[in-house]
């Protein structure tokens, strides 16, 4: 059994928190969690980085407080070229991120749920550059079922 506080230590002990120790790349889901900030108009903002030699998105789980528009700053601090393919209504957004570059993306997500994002070049996705954008919130009241509150997990 592993408890949550032990998780970081165990990942390090097993070599699952870096490239080419236990695994060849970086195991998915071992990255950081971050929150998007929200302006007074409800528009959201966040920065996502690729840190040097980490081969993971930082944050690899980005949480939006609700559905809507979000402005992202994307920074590649790695010494290799990557890219980003991001979910958005209408079409997915794509940007090349050569080493030491920074760019921008505007997304629209109508949540709730989580949406993947990645770097679809080489096998960046398999080696660690896959992340999630989590949108909080509920369906609008008019779309919900006419029934009493139901037990939830």
């Amino acid at each position: 059994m592993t408890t949550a506080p032990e998780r970081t230590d165990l990942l390090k002990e097993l070599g699952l928190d870096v490239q080419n120790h236990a695994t060849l790349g970086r195991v998915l889901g071992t990255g950081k969690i971050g929150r998007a900030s929200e302006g007074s108009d409800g528009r959201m903002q966040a920065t996502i980085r690729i840190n040097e030699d980490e081969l993971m998105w930082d944050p690899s789980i980005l949480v939006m407080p609700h559905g809507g528009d979000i402005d992202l700053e994307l920074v590649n601090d790695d010494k290799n070229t990557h890219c980003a393919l991001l979910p958005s209504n209408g079409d997915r957004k794509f940007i090349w991120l050569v080493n030491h570059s920074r760019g921008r993306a505007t997304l629209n997500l109508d949540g709730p749920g989580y949406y993947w994002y990645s770097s679809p070049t080489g096998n960046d996705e398999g080696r660690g550059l896959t992340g999630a954008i989590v949108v909080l919130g509920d369906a609008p009241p008019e779309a919900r079922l006419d029934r009493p509150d139901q037990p939830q997990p």
Partner: protein
Amino acid sequence: MTTSEDYVDAGEAIDQGNLSGKMPGGEIAPPVTAAVTYERILNARNEPHNWLTYYGAYDGQRYSPLDQINTENVKRLVPAWVFQAGTTGLIAGASTYSFEAAPIVVDGIMFLTGWDGWIWALDAKTGVEIWRYKHAVPFDVSLCCGNVNRGCAVAQGKVFFVTANARLIALDATNGKMVWAKTYGDVRAGESATVAPLIVKNMVIVGSSGGEFGVRGHLDAFDLESGEHQWRCYMVPKPGEPGSETWPADGEAWARGGANCWVTSTFDPETNLLYVGTGNPAPDFDGEVREGDNLYTDSIVAVDADSGQIRWHHQCTPHDLWDYDSIAENILFEKDGRKLLGHFDKNGYFYVVDRTDGELVSVTPFVDRITWGAVTRDGRVTAKLYPEKEGEPVHFYPGPAGAKEWTHASYSPKTEFFYVPVQDTGATATRRRREFKESIPYWGAGVQVDAEDMAGSISAFDGNGEEKWRWRNELPMCASTLATGGDLVFAGEATGEFNALDARSGELLWQFQCGSGHHSNPTTYTVEGRQYIAVPVGWGGWAEGFLPGMLGAGHGSALFVFALPEPA
């Protein structure tokens, strides 16, 4: 230390579709849907060069009078073009995606939906992509039965489709840009959407998916111009409403009762009724928590198109314990001057009903093995084998995918035959009661569908329920049929073969291996006088439920379009 000045400016992320090799300016379709009105859809049979609505016409016949391709020349049919949809990166329900759409064609432009929020406009003559729209679908969306979508609708300059996270979306049909979007289901309750919308008058009609998650099924209408909600028709009555006496008086079984409308309705302008098939009750296999007939689950329901009120119903499987949705199409036809509808139900029986008042005309079995129970010709139902005792396995035919799944039969007014894709497969269900929790699958049993000892066929029936011919197959047939004025029936196989049968004899006249299994709706149209047959090919969906022996087959994601060779 790196400073901001050191960074290369990567600019602004662009739409991925801009990197698809299209020529600038080539992303605009001619305004072919601008003049598509209710009246044109009503008279769709008068413009056979187009496939204007999901079934081809409101009657659900999936019949085209086009006869350029016929029994004499079909052996010369060849691919005209192929559209490869493909996928990039992760998608929701990657293991279960399937290409199930019915291509819509208006004056040389094709509108086609895929899985995971995709829709495309294509040149129907060449297959060249004109525009694409991709809705962002949550990776964790509840998908009872696969990452699928069955098609779109067009009218008055727009194209309408639903997404797996229960959105109804209206796009500008010339450029694929969103005009409006409405949420009509609650993904936190396990609701989703897969249905092809239906345009009736000034409304877009859609239904919900999610019966396996214990939701309350509903049909909704939206104004096609503004997106304003017009009405909602719940298919499980609340306490006090007509039909509520068929649910337990105590508790909240009705609130979790299922009866989703996840397949497109048919419509009769003379009766002003939508004919809607409803899904299974929830939980699927544990009847003790929902004593009673459980209306309007497993029913043919007639709904007034203007008010959304239920006018009449016929329940095919009262108190269903086998997962026998009645979502199948209701094909409108006339016989001896009587206005009827034909319905091939998952429970293995072919129902003919008077569509003016719901009176049952006949019931006939259309598959060889039926062991769950019996339905007499006057509609009386006797259950025989069902999961009754906790932990005790019970085997029955047909399995929960039914003797025919959601895929559609067709009807030719020339031959007056129905052509039904038949699945002859059993299953074992073992009751395992569980407490209901919102958004968690709510089955009430462990179910294993047979992976051996199965069969399939395309079977032809007349309006009396008499079988006229049968084209046998070793595996179940899991794709919709298409009937044409060339006296042909097109039928895809799970193993990839696309077949043309003689509509009068069932003789196999032509076959093409498409490289992936068929689980979709072929349609036909003409451009510049040349007839095309279009069929989406991409095996997948709820394969564990209807053909687990093919769970390992490749998925595929191509639209094949066939035609006769052009003259030299």
